[in-house]
């Protein structure tokens, strides 16, 4: 029975251990039971125990693997995980094993790289980088790092072409790699590319600044050799990428780069950017600079009317410059027989189209329009004179251009050298004056700003004929301005302008046209006083007659406006003294006389003094108008008698009849009065 109890005890313990999952102890007990009394059932459980033991061993191995991984013992951990996977494969184990293998490999590479870098062994490094890049599963960031490291190694090994090709396929991002790529480009002779590359790097690095400064002359040389265009922002970046000392030393190179950048900006239509570099205008302008600034200002004036005045002076000066236009024709591919004046006309239209557009859009000041007219007229005249001039002088030029660039004195000297100092006719004076010190005032006056012009007029010295002429012209324009505004205070200005009217008949003609023109009605009468004074100073019959006419017209106007007899009598007397034989003067006298008699007649009729009324009619030479007034007045009087008694009516009617018969015995009113008297007497 002891055998029986041993068997049962072992089986019982074995099953208990099996139930708890303790497979080693369950196996030991079940083996005892199986030995004492073998059975298929126990044999099956023994097989299950063995399988369970294997799974448990695998779990233990994985557990040990994790602990070892945490301690950084990657190789031992890998062994444990591999053991676990071999014993009992799990889904996660292959990934873990791969990961560990990579980390072990990466660490080995890192160690190799560190060792090679310590030795500056670029061959070894390059090999390692290439192996790493060829290996599996690098993240994007890691790949970028190793690509850049390979680039560095290639440059360090002076394999510049390979480096450039590698960078072409794998563009670097990091500053160091970009620097090395720049160096590779420089080493291959692509200095401009290299400069661009280095200027993209963060500024302010003193070492890099020195390197850039050393590269600039080479890049300049390449740019000139290849006539290469440069990026629009190159000049700005050059300023950022060089220190102040280098900027000074490299100023002449930088000036060239600046113009190349501007060229690119212009082709990109970044006119404001060009202006940022090139404005304000320099104090002096060469011919080439004129050819540059004129289109620039015109382009700026497309949007900004503040630039329009400068654009006008530069554009007109440029298009009247024959050498500048010839440059354009000379560089054209197809030779034609294009005439300069035709080209000039087309270019002038470009400016006029711009002015018209601003005018249509309500953005063009009238003063600016007038300014343009003056500038155009003056430069046309200068161009037509064909004055001898030095080739380095921008010639001809507009007055505003000359004033801005300090050429006014030179222009006047040229004119004097051409025409001598004396006896300038007005065609010369009216051009030269704009280049004198007073010219600006006249420009203002021409543009309609007469008060500003007066304020700016400089004092005239004795021998300053242009100053005197200018003063007279400004005074003349002020007089005209006041007249057109209906202001009677223009006389003093016309008095100052007298020499102009004495010397140049067209001013007299202009004044006559205004005085007798139909465009002004009452306003032109403000000229009467001034013209009357001028007429006495001028030996000009036509002017005197025109003045007499104006005075008479004013007198006639006043006769019916305010009835101030003294004024219109005085005006007519003035007219008569200027032009005694004028028909209009005679007629005006008749009108005045008639108006005076009418006044007297009305006064007499109002007071009921019919005898006085009849005497006035007689004095007027029996004027038809007065007779008509007389009979009209009596008609009203007769109608007014009806409210009186018969006796009073008869008295008045007999009185009326006495005077009406004196005035006109055949007038129908006589028979009316007679018949009324007869009816009343009945």
């Amino acid at each position, binding site marked *: 029975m002891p055998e029986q109890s041993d068997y049962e005890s072992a089986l019982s313990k074995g099953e208990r251990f099996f139930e708890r999952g303790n497979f080693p102890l369950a196996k030991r007990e079940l083996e005892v039971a199986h030995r004492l009394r073998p059975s298929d059932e126990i044999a099956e459980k023994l097989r299950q125990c063995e399988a369970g033991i294997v799974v448990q061993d695998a779990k233990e191995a994985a557990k040990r693997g994790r602990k070892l991984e945490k301690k950084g013992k990657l190789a031992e951990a890998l062994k444990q995980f591999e053991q676990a996977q071999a014993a009992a494969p799990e889904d996660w184990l292959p990934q873990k094993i791969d990961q560990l293998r990579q980390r072990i490999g990466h660490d080995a590479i890192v160690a190799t790289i560190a060792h090679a870098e310590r030795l500056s062994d670029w061959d070894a490094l390059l090999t390692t980088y290439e192996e790493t890049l060829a290996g599996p599963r690098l993240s994007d960031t890691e790949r970028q790092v190793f690509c850049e490291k390979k680039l560095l190694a290639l440059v360090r090994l002076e394999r510049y072409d390979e480096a450039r090709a590698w960078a072409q396929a794998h563009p670097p991002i990091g500053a160091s790699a970009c620097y090395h790529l720049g160096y590779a480009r420089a080493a291959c002779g692509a200095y401009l590319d290299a400069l661009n590359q280095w200027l993209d790097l963060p500024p302010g690095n003193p070492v890099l600044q020195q390197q850039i400064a050393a590269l600039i002359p080479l890049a300049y040389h390449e740019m000139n050799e290849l006539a290469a265009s440069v990026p629009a922002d190159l000049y700005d970046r050059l300023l950022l990428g060089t220190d102040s000392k280098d900027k000074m030393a490299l100023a002449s190179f930088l000036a060239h780069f600046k113009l190349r950048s501007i060229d690119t900006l212009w082709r990109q239509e970044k006119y404001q950017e060009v202006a940022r570099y090139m404005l304000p205008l320099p104090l002096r302008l060469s011919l080439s600079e004129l050819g540059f600034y004129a289109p620039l200002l015109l382009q700026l004036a497309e949007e900004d009317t503040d630039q329009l005045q400068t654009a006008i002076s530069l554009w007109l000066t440029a298009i009247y410059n024959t050498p500048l236009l010839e440059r354009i024709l000379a560089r054209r591919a197809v030779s034609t027989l294009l005439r300069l004046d035709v080209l000039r006309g087309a270019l002038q239209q*470009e400016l006029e189209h711009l002015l018209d557009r601003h005018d249509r859009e309500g953005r063009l000041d009238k003063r600016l329009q007038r300014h343009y007219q003056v500038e155009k007229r003056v430069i046309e005249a200068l161009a037509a004179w064909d004055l001898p001039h030095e080739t380095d002088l921008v010639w001809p030029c507009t007055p505003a251009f000359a004033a801005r660039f300090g050429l006014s004195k030179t222009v006047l000297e040229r004119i004097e050298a051409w025409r001598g100092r004396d006896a300038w006719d007005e065609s010369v004076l009216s051009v030269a004056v704009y280049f004198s010190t007073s010219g600006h005032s006249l420009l203002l006056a021409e543009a309609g700003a007469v008060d500003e012009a007066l304020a700016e007029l400089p004092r005239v010295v004795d021998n300053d004929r242009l100053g005197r002429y200018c003063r007279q012209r400004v005074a003349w324009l002020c007089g005209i301005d006041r007249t057109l505004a209906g202001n009677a205070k223009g006389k003093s200005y016309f008095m100052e302008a007298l020499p102009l009217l004495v010397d140049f008949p067209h001013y007299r003609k202009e004044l006559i046209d205004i005085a007798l023109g139909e465009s002004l009605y009452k306003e032109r009468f403000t000229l009467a006083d001034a013209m009357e004074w001028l007429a006495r100073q001028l030996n000009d019959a036509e002017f005197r007659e025109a003045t007499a006419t104006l005075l008479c017209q004013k007198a006639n106007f006043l006769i019916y406006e305010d009835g101030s007899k003294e004024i219109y009598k005085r005006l007519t007397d003035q007219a008569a003294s200027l032009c005694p034989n004028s028909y209009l003067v005679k007629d005006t006298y008749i009108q005045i006389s008639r108006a005076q008699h009418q006044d007297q007649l009305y006064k007499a009729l109002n007071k009921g003094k019919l005898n006085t009324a009849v005497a006035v009619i007689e004095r007027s030479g029996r004027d038809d108008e007065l007779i008509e007034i007389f009979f009209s007045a009596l008609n009203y009087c007769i109608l007014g008698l009806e409210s009186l008694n018969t006796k009073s009516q008869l008295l008045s009617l007999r009185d009326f009849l006495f005077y009406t018969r004196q005035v006109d015995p055949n007038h129908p009113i006589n028979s009316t009065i007679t018949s009324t008297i007869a009816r009343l007497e009945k």
Partner: protein
Amino acid sequence: MENPFLVLPISILASPSDILREVTLAMRAGRYDAKRVAGVQRILFNPLTRATAEFRYRLDTLSLIAELPSPEISEEASIPPLLDPFGT
């Protein structure tokens, strides 16, 4: 007048056949509508309007550059040594 060189970026020396080639390229590229390209072609084929456009829109920086003093380049000028301003 429109800037023709923006639509047809021809060189100063471009001949009528060069212009026609640019016209074809521009049409194919489809950057501008055919009417605009034709308008620009007219400008460039007419000697007067082409000269006007040259004056107005072709900035003559070369003449300005020619007026600048030429910087002197030392015969010893060479690329600077390879350093590493940003460290590796």
